[in-house]
């Protein structure tokens, strides 16, 4: 196993993890949209998203995708920082989840998360009545407990996303983590993330959020976003 991947074992508990094999990611965005559908996620926020970066100089150029989601950390700073215990870790499985009815919307967890994986739900949604609280990726807890893979894994065209129990030595995630050099985002934070990347470029991932397009490309979008939500 590689960096940052000391996983708790024993006790017959499951430890779910996702492997994102960037060699297989074609940047199709199916995961992002499947997730939107699964949770009726409003516009402006995402539980999973796929930033990309164009690297190299003409004609040796590549487009590099880095699918992102909550890392379901072994030591999640969001849990530590929530003043009302709205966010918590499920021992069996390792899911980091959110209890909407306890959330006071203080955004402490958002500030604490080194991965920008949490967001405030806006006031308007299509049909789900949960609004104005913090939300995040749940590793599709409601699907996994029904023996289904998360929605993003289910639809992943390139089979770039693989989900399973890291405590089961026969699982595909165990195999992939054992047999490949893997990376996690921002290991220096000591969060022990459970989303393992294969083939992620360290130059792009060192600071977690840097796999994005250049600033001048992003800026008009950012300012439109800030304008609309009055940030």
């Amino acid at each position: 196993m590689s960096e940052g991947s000391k996983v708790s074992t024993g006790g017959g508990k499951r430890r779910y993890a996702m492997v994102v094999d960037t060699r297989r990611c074609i940047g199709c965005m199916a995961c992002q949209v499947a997730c939107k559908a699964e949770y009726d996620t409003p516009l402006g926020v995402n539980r999973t998203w796929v930033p990309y970066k164009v690297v190299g100089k003409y004609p040796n150029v590549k487009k590099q995708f880095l699918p992102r989601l909550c890392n379901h950390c072994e030591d999640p700073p969001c849990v530590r920082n929530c003043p009302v215990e709205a966010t918590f870790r499920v021992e069996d499985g390792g899911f980091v989840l959110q209890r909407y009815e306890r959330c006071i919307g203080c955004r402490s967890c958002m500030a604490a998360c080194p991965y920008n994986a949490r967001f405030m739900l806006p006031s308007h949604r299509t049909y789900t009545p949960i609004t104005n609280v913090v939300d995040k990726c749940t590793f599709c807890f409601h699907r996994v407990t029904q023996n289904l893979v998360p929605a993003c894994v289910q639809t992943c065209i390139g089979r770039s996303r693989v989900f399973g129990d890291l405590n089961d030595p026969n699982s595909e995630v165990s195999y992939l983590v054992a047999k490949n050099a893997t990376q996690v985002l921002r290991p220096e934070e000591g969060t022990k993330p459970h989303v393992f990347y294969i083939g992620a470029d360290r130059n792009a991932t060192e600071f977690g959020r840097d796999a994005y397009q250049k600033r001048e490309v992003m800026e008009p979008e950012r300012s439109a976003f800030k304008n609309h939500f009055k940030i």
Partner: protein
Amino acid sequence: MEMPKVTRRTFLKVSAGSGAAAAAAPRLLTAMENDLGGKDFGPVSGAERKAIPVNCHVCNIQDGAIAYVENDRVVKLEGNPEHVSTRGRLCAKGNSGMWYSYDPDRILYPLKRVGARGEGKWKRITWDEALAELTEKLDAALKEDPNTIMLKYGRNRTGGSIDRFMKTLGSATVVNHTSVCESSKKIGMEPTWGPDIETPDFANAKYVLNFGSNVLEASYFHNPLSQRVTEGRVDNQMKIVTFDVRLSNTAGFSDEWIPVFPATDGAVALAIGHVILREDLQDSDFINNWTNVTVAELKEHYKQYTPEWAAKISGVPVATIERIAREFATTKPATLFTYRGPAKHLYGSYNEKACMMLPIMTGNVEKKGGYCLPRGMGWPQPMPEPGKPAHDSVLAHPPEYPLAAHKVSHLVPFWIAEGRQKINVYFTYQDNPVYTNPGSMAVWGKLFKDEKLIPYLVSMSPFMGEETALADLILPDCPYLERWEPESMPNSLWPWLGIRQPVHKSLGESRENRVLLRDIIHNLDPDGKRGMKQFWDFKDGEDYMRHHFDNVPGLKEAGGLDFLKKHGVWPIYGKLDPKTGKVSDKTGREIKADYGLYLKELSAADMAGATVDGKGIISKNGKAIGVRREGKNCVGFPTGNRLINVRVDQWADYGFNPMPTFKRIPWHEAMKEDELILSTFKLNVHKQSRTAAVKWLAEIAHSNPAWMNPETAAKLGVKTGDLVRVESAVGHLVTKAYVTEGIHPKVVSIPTGFGHWEYGRLATLKLKDKKGEYSHGADDPDLNNVWWDDKGVHPNNIIPVVADPIGGSQGWYDTVVKVTKAGPNDKYGDSEGNWEKHVAAYKETMRYAYTGDLHRKMHPEMAAWAGPDSVKHKAGGGH
């Protein structure tokens, strides 16, 4: 619904709001891997959702899908795990298909125009009123000439009902959209080996040459083939080399991206062939046995296409061409894929042919990991069937383009304007040429605003697209999730039949197309005296499907339509293995495809009464049915002589080069130093015109700045975000620049799918200015969250028509433009095309037709051709 209330004790139950789900689950799973779909549960309710198998139809890849319904609303779509091609996965577009149904601006009632055309003033009328008015117009048109009733469709997956409708009316004026799509690819391939497309066996290939296809974002067959590309690339260590003018996601994923000068792929392919033949790396047995040329003939013919020649034209270095040629020829199995890159040019058919020659000459055809024939399935039509119309239509089969069997639809407005055919009633179905075609508003908008040329325009559409906005009568059709339709697509190496079925009652008063067409016919012929009603004798969409599917051998025994209603697809080849994501048989092993279809042996019954000639061609009743090779009676290829026709003799009849060849675009040769070529493309999350109103896709991509290389941008003094003016011979536009390393310095590239001026409030970003007016559909509160303020600029006004004289294809990537930094009077979003200049472009392109004056000049090698008057048998065309 209320927020779940919880105490600390029931902590797990409510996590992620999935109280019931957790409660219902006895314990966390014990299985080794979780299932890859087939079931779905609400994250808040925890309830299992109703699953209805359908066939996706956001675009035309035709993935098998499952619609999950909660509270009578489709909340989730996923790939059908029983579908052999789709294997449980959908792309971003497929995942958001329910927004076709729930578009708040969907048209749910018949509408009649009350203002001037295109003014946007509508009156809601009843179906009875709509049909009565239409019947009157059709009656009058039928009295004059049935061919004055025209129907143009864009995406027609009705499985025959559109053709049945027009044949019932007795009109041959049926025009499609294929010439703006991939027609010259089809025409490059069909005379050569039969079918119009290939199925590359990416999963098992070791080497792939990709000429101008962006299969990882769009093109046939995005999702199923992308799955196999990643498998081949990562699990099978295949190498993939992409030739493209732009760094598409496919090019970016490839081991090598080799930028080419636009329209020169064909020259590179010929030069690769030259090296293969020069170095004797070809598969001589395959060429000699299965094509209509010999190795010696081919070697002689390819001598002219040197890498030095191609390098000069394409910019691809000689050493690269030679290296790729050797790699391709010596790595087995190898395959090749093309899409619009080579085909959408003045001589696109030649380019496609040059590309497909490479797997042919290396014997990779129908091999495991090679270049395979498409596998499809058909279905019977309800009986009785209407006969062929009495007279052909010049718009459907223009005599200047006898080889363009998929028609030349983008030249139709000019022909109508010239009075070549009178139109009384114009039907449009899933088409939007005012947006999608070259000339766009300047050409098609002009045509439809002219009430003399188009006296009555009827749109069968659920959406107020750019064309529908110019209609006189709108009949609210249903989006794909509310329709019955038969389906089959060769999107993997396993053939299948599938259906679309309504997931719920059609919304408002919308009617699915085949029912709508039936109602028109029944209104026109209420007592059956006109002989029309007999062809439309079915109760509803489901009844129509029974006529298609209840008697298909094999499916019939499995349960016919009832089987398809339950599973969505037939046959089911195996089970989706959660460990591999592949389809496994009962033994747990991955299912295997059939290869070598052309080597299948004819039965004794087939051979009874057949004769074999000196070349081994087996004929029966005057028709070639197979080829005898090494003592075996093989079925061969689905062509006239059952061989691969490297030499297409029919082309020579019209003065075209029957052998693999390349023609440079004459106006590219004459380009000035400061001119660029404009190309267009599709992004991963959009179709050409129908997805701008799909919120999840629009959020990901909503604007389309013009890509340009830093070297180009530096010359213009432009950086990302700056306004640029792009000017062609027919118009100009003003858009933003996106400076990127991922594009050829002589190319400026603008994606399509953006810059709508109709198509509802989301596509046009008029959510705040207008309330929904045509629809009683529910507003979507989430649209309050639309945060982007840039809808992009559509490029088609400034793209002139170009028609491939062979395949009829639009030359989308042939436009020469001048790009400058925007001036003080230029405004973002300016877009203007000039009708007279478009007409001039149309006249110019007709000069390349076999009847035109430039045809001979372009074909000095065909000097012996006796000219257009020598053509005795004019090909009928029409597939």
